[in-house]
């Protein structure tokens, strides 16, 4: 890989990053939603990304996963450039197949679950095991049941998504991602679409994952979760990283005015 050379200087000084972004930016039409973002994620690290809506935090995660192609900069997963390659000095998009290869260590969970409605909970989990990993039906079923067990939903295996609660759907979605044995999990506002009483069951699963040493990036509004579980919190506003650091420092001694404001608004809303 010729790309590795460009990366060597930046990451050799630290523990080797699983996911690394250098100076990425993204525009939707005339609107610049991400501006020159640097980001690095070490193994077993849990990073929470917070910020007001429209701050670009979800777009950042989607760019790290190449669900949105970033315009400038580079995203590396395991030191491999994601989404682009060098072709005669020019940067061109790689094939979808290459994207899949580079992205293989990443699992993703979405705000709106995106379970496939025509598949049962178990089939949602086993689909990729069969299509991508080539497991037999029996192997995939065994593996899928184990995954559902892990999120406490083995008894719902034969149900279609429409008969599951929001919390159950999100747990199935987590099991679906975990089945592919990812080394990093991306969570894009995993509890934002849930009724308040269902948030806990999803956060419990995520807590357990973090405790088991899973590397995670979590875009979230759950400050409690961020304070408790994150190794590092990133505060974004208007497409830029405004502040980042350990949750204790960030929440207790916010340096920037914008973060202070953000935290105040949040406290006002959650005081009662």
């Amino acid at each position, binding site marked *: 890989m010729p790309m590795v050379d460009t990366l060597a200087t930046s990451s050799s000084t630290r523990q080797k990053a699983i996911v690394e972004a250098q100076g990425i930016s993204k525009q939707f039409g005339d609107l610049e939603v991400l501006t020159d973002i640097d980001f690095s994620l070490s193994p077993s690290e849990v990073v929470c990304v917070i910020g007001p809506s429209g701050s670009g935090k979800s777009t950042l995660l989607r760019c790290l996963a190449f669900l949105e192609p970033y315009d400038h900069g580079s995203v590396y997963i395991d030191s491999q450039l994601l989404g682009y390659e060098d072709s005669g000095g020019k940067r061109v998009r790689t094939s979808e197949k290459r994207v899949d290869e580079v992205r293989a260590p990443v699992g993703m969970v*979405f705000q709106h679950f995106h*379970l496939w409605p025509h598949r049962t909970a178990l089939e949602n989990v086993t689909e990729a095991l069969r299509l991508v990993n080539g497991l037999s039906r029996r192997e995939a079923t065994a593996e899928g049941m184990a995954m559902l067990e892990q999120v406490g939903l083995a008894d719902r295996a034969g149900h279609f998504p429409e008969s599951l609660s929001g919390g159950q759907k999100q747990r199935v979605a987590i099991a679906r991602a975990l089945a592919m044995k990812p080394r990093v999990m991306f969570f894009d506002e995993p509890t934002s679409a849930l009724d308040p009483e269902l948030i806990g069951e999803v956060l419990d699963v995520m807590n357990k994952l973090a405790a088991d040493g899973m590397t995670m990036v979590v875009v979230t509004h759950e400050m409690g979760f961020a304070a408790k579980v994150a190794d590092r919190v990133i505060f974004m506003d208007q497409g830029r990283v405004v502040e980042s650091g350990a949750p204790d420092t960030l929440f207790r001694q916010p340096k920037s005015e914008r973060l202070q404001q953000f935290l105040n608004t949040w406290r006002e809303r959650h005081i009662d």
Partner: protein
Amino acid sequence: MFDIAILWEARELILQGLWNTVWICFLGCLLALSLGLLLAALRLANPQVFGYPVACYVELCRGIPLLILLFLLYYGGPSIGLTLSASVAGVVGIGLYGAGYFAEIYRGGFKSIPKGHVEAARMLGISPFHVLTRIQIPQMARLIVPPSTNQLIILVKESALISIISVNDLTKNATSIVNETFHVIEPYLAVALLYWLIIELIARGGYALEKRLANRQPRPIEPLGDTLHANG
């Protein structure tokens, strides 16, 4: 008074009409369904090249009466060396006309699958081809059944127009019986009933298919083999 004897005497004409209506509708609808699929696939695969031409084709089907299309094919065709028998003109006319509507139905179904379903699959490494065949098409199938059934019914009813270009279909033969017997109600009502029967069959079929595709009752999980249990 309803004179059923008239119908019995004219049974051969009625059956001939039924047969002609059925096979012309069947082939016409088949052509419409496949050509519509082709148009929709082209448009979705390459919107830059095919988007505008297909959209224009759809507008043509929506804006021009089927009768004009049939006349163009049957009476206008010979001036450009295209001589079709009335029945073939009927099949082609119904096919070309329906294709525009089906292209729109397919496209609508495809577009209404949430983008996130595709993203979730892609993040798991499922290839674009499998995303299409395992995630998008199965979901689309369920969405397009009701409007497609509806469109098929419309086409069967519109097929009565082929009688005007002299195909001996149900409508034409009913009119022949009316002219011969001077009884109006019996032949037309009998034929109306037959149309209704065909339509009812299509509606039932569509409904059954929709039910089958939409069956989302919890399913039992197949028990795992002993070998796997032994391994844990």
